[in-house]
């Protein structure tokens, strides 16, 4: 039993590590600022690879989840690592071609992130008893939330390290950031890291029963259901979950960008601290909410998260309307951490809820379908950008 738990923790931490690397998605916010004027990209062009990547990430969760259920997490996560690595390398060798970046970073890396993300959580939760589902799901997905702490500064350092200086026709010095080399370093690094950690992912043997410390917690009280995706989408439960996830994730993501602006307003040059605090809040919200949901139930935790998020949005509206405390760093940081935590909470509660309601057998595909609600806000986001 002890050996089984040890293996479970190895699988969970490998999943966290994979998600930590897959946060390469967040590097784009820094990389796009390094794209030289000589490439002739508009602001909309610069946003395109990221938008395509986020869309492909959410879309890939469905086939990746299905594959994960069929052939196991190791192979699917390995495919994810190869796709992410190869995608970044395609972008690196595309020169200034927007199409190359869209195909490389957008389609290939985006799908790779989906393949990796879809394979990290299911094997980890299978090793542990139901009363730890929320905690384990939270720990695994926390890696993705925490990634922006290191990935953005790392991208910035690499862009500077590889920058080149040339003399233009008019004799002025032109400095260009090293976008292509940065993508190449990311491609090689994440290929090695994700493929390496993927080898540690494995499902427990058939018939494995995780040692449970409690006989009837709120998390274990649910009737055992092993639903196929067709059975799942015919339940009202699925659609209510989808709507809740869509609303919560949409609101969270919207205010994450507001939080970054708020940080710039109140902290000026130190706005990067707000970004780091946001990531820490995001990651800790995933672990905390997952853990709390194991104790008091998923719905009760979700209810608290929704109400808390509504209060935070109300406070944000006061700050945006010019409340004097909106320009102070401490209240700003508190708001930022709460925004991150509320958003992150959804990403651990919903996978745990999916497992509780629809079972583990088809968990990969089922959660992939639930996760489409997260991806569905992408077209809305694009519409929003057009309105701005």
């Amino acid at each position: 039993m002890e050996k089984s738990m040890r293996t479970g923790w190895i699988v969970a931490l490998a999943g966290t590590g994979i998600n930590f690397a897959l946060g390469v998605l967040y590097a784009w916010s820094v990389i796009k600022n390094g794209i030289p004027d000589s490439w002739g990209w508009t602001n909309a062009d610069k946003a395109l690879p990221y938008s395509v990547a986020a869309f492909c990430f959410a879309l890939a969760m469905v086939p990746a989840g299905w594959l994960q259920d069929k052939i196991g997490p190791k192979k699917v996560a390995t495919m994810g690592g190869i796709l992410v690595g190869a995608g970044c390398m395609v972008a690196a060798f595309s020169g200034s071609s927007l199409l190359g970046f869209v195909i490389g970073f957008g389609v290939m890396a985006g799908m790779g992130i989906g393949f990796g993300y879809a394979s990290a959580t299911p094997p980890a939760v299978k090793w542990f008893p139901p009363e730890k589902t929320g905690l384990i799901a939270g720990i695994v997905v926390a890696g993705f939330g925490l990634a922006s702490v290191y990935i953005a500064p790392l991208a910035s350092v690499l862009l500077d390290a590889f920058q080149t200086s040339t003399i233009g026709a008019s004799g002025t010095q032109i400095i260009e950031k090293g976008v292509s080399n940065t993508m190449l370093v990311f491609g090689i690094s994440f290929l090695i890291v994700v493929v390496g950690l993927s080898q540690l992912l494995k499902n427990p043997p058939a018939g494995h029963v995780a040692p449970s410390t409690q006989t009837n917690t709120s998390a274990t009280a649910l009737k055992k259901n092993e639903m196929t995706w067709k059975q799942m989408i015919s339940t009202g439960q699925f659609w209510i979950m989808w709507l809740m996830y869509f609303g919560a994730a949409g609101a969270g993501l919207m205010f994450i960008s507001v939080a970054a602006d708020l940080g710039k307003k109140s902290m000026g040059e130190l706005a990067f601290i707000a970004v780091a605090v946001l990531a820490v809040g995001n990651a800790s919200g995933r672990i905390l909410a997952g853990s709390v949901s194991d104790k008091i139930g998923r719905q009760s935790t979700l209810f608290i998260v929704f109400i808390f998020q509504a209060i935070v949005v109300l406070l944000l509206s006061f700050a945006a309307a010019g409340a004097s405390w909106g320009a102070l760093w401490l209240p700003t940081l508190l708001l930022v951490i709460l925004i991150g935590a509320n958003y992150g909470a959804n990403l651990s509660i919903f996978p745990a809820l999916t497992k509780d309601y629809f079972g583990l057998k088809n968990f990969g595909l089922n959660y992939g379908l639930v996760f489409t609600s997260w991806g569905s806000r992408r077209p809305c986001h694009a519409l929003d950008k057009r309105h701005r």
Partner: protein
Amino acid sequence: MPWINGIVKDMGKPHLAYWVIIAVLLAGACLTFVSKGLANDSGWNKVKTGLCLNTTQARCFFLKDRQPCNQERGSN
């Protein structure tokens, strides 16, 4: 949902966007109660079955104690 902000901004009332989001979040909080009601026994399916097969029993599901009603339906 972020598009709400853009639309509301176009209407010249940026503050309204926050209230729309708050309303969405409160609606989400209410949905957790609905979700809770469906948690253990897929009551949603029972309602659907009741509505499709037997409106009397569906009415029974809503108006009377659910347990005896479910037992009756089980015999159909």
